[in-house]
């Protein structure tokens, strides 16, 4: 038998931020190099926004704000929810069915790091979609928000995307990639309509208005609108936090059933 040779390999142990960096870079490359999947997730809200802002943008909403401004909040909610709800879950399901998640697991990458990276990598895309609708709004209605308000709006929307990303992961952990797309869209669209993201809640039937308060999209939209009107949003914030906890619990539950 060959003689035993002492090996001394210099290796980083414990949490290594470079691993998160690699994972985020991989996530961003996946989006940039194969953009078709997310293209529709951004294009749809932008087209919808262009259409409705073109029609109603000049009106004034009941709150006294120009409709183009309130629509930035509601359609912004819709775009962010779409990107955060579709991207992390679909890519996790893809990685899983492809066998890549197994490769990463065996390499000692904590799944929590992979998951965090998926959410982080989706953020620039969500931001991009917000920039797109803001540009359309500028074209159609001119400047309706001051810069500070707009920045607050964007910040709230991006942070508020977290529960949607967690819900997305919960589905992506257990369903196939095709099923994940179908399931997430089946949740997203009714939720968006019922929360008044497409048409103002006041114009929806009473039944739908009654269920809106249990939907995270509704509370994110209200919180976003609050940035424009100055209305207090503590209740909506609490509701969003509760949604985040529930989504995290669902994701945790799904993670325990994760088969890599």
């Amino acid at each position, binding site marked *: 038998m060959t003689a*035993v*040779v002492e090996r001394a*390999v210099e290796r980083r142990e414990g949490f290594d931020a470079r691993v998160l960096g*690699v994972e985020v870079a*991989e996530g961003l490359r996946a989006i940039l190099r194969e953009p078709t999947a997310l293209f529709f997730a951004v294009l749809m809200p932008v087209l919808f926004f262009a259409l409705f802002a073109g029609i109603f943008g000049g009106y004034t909403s009941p709150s006294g704000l120009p409709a183009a401004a309130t629509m930035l909040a509601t359609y912004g909610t819709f775009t962010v929810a779409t990107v955060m709800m579709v991207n992390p879950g679909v890519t996790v399901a893809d990685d899983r069915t492809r066998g890549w998640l197994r490769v990463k697991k065996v390499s000692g990458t904590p799944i929590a790091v992979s998951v965090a990276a998926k959410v982080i990598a989706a953020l620039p895309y969500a931001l991009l979609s917000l920039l797109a609708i803001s540009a359309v709004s500028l074209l159609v209605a001119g400047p309706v928000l001051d810069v500070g308000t707009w920045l607050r709006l964007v910040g709230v929307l991006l942070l508020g995307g977290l529960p949607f990303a967690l819900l997305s992961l919960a589905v992506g952990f257990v369903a196939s990639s095709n099923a994940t797309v179908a399931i997430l869209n089946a949740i997203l669209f009714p939720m968006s309509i019922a929360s008044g993201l497409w048409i103002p809640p006041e114009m929806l039937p009473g039944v739908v208005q009654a269920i809106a308060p249990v939907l995270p999209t509704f509370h994110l939209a209200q919180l976003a609108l609050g940035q424009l009107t100055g209305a207090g949003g503590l209740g909506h914030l609490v509701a969003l936090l509760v949604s985040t906890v529930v989504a995290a619990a669902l994701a945790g539950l799904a993670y325990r059933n994760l088969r890599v």
Partner: protein
Amino acid sequence: MDARVLQIEGVRHRYGALTAVDGVDLRVAPGECVALLGPNGAGKTTLIGLATGLLAAQEGRVRVCGGDPRSAATRRHLGVVQQTMGFPTTLTVAELVRGAAVRAGRPAAAAGPVLAEVGITDLARRRSAKLSGGQRQRVALAMALVGDPDLLLLDEPTAGLDVAARRTFWQVLARRRDAGVGILLTTHILEEAASTADRVVVLHRGRVVAEDSPGGLSARLADRTLTARSGVDVVVLRGLPGVLTAVRDGERVRVTSAEPERVLRAWLPLDDALGELRVEGAGLEQALFALTDDRSERDDETMGVPA
């Protein structure tokens, strides 16, 4: 300090009613290369899965570099090629190998030399979606090597490799072995494994049926092959005393046996025309075949496993 980089003790794994790994003991020391052989379904991949911690041992104990293979910290010391593994189609070869280096706690710059070592520098900028089967296999090997692991677990690493790539593979492996890396690999190409492996472990139906040096294994079975031109039905031959296996190859028949004289005494009266008789030492392939062929009725017999 434990001198073993892999320690598998009395491990059992069941998939429902099927026992895929049935009480296996296996150790790999630093600087040792162990080849795991056995027919399809023998339990090789399951055993590798237990060693990587992807599967939990339902019975027995698995230790890797002194740690639990299910912990992320231990896994950083492992280099693994899985039998089926997938890469994101959007990443290039260089990105994949650099990522593997970082995941193992090593600098990303370690990728360059390993790409060269495995002979895929010219593929560095190619997307994984555009790789051929053998190229993918080489990328997988580079990803396993780049972390400078203490233990390599390679499940059919030569599957799909051409002759030149296989030669490179065994050279790379011998170099790592000599540098003190422990290696456990599965393969179906026995003769090749024999040139690099220090030990061959034959798995059959989840059990170790033989464990020896490659030379020892073939020596033990050296007097076992009889070939002859004969018209006697192989089914009849298999019924003769002392016959382990009988296979027809055109006009000729190949019989393996531990007692060639006894076989001949029974065979000759059955066939006046028996000719071109040759008795020779069995190659490793035949030895393996004899060990794992169900018709040889040796299933429950264990050979050469140290008590």
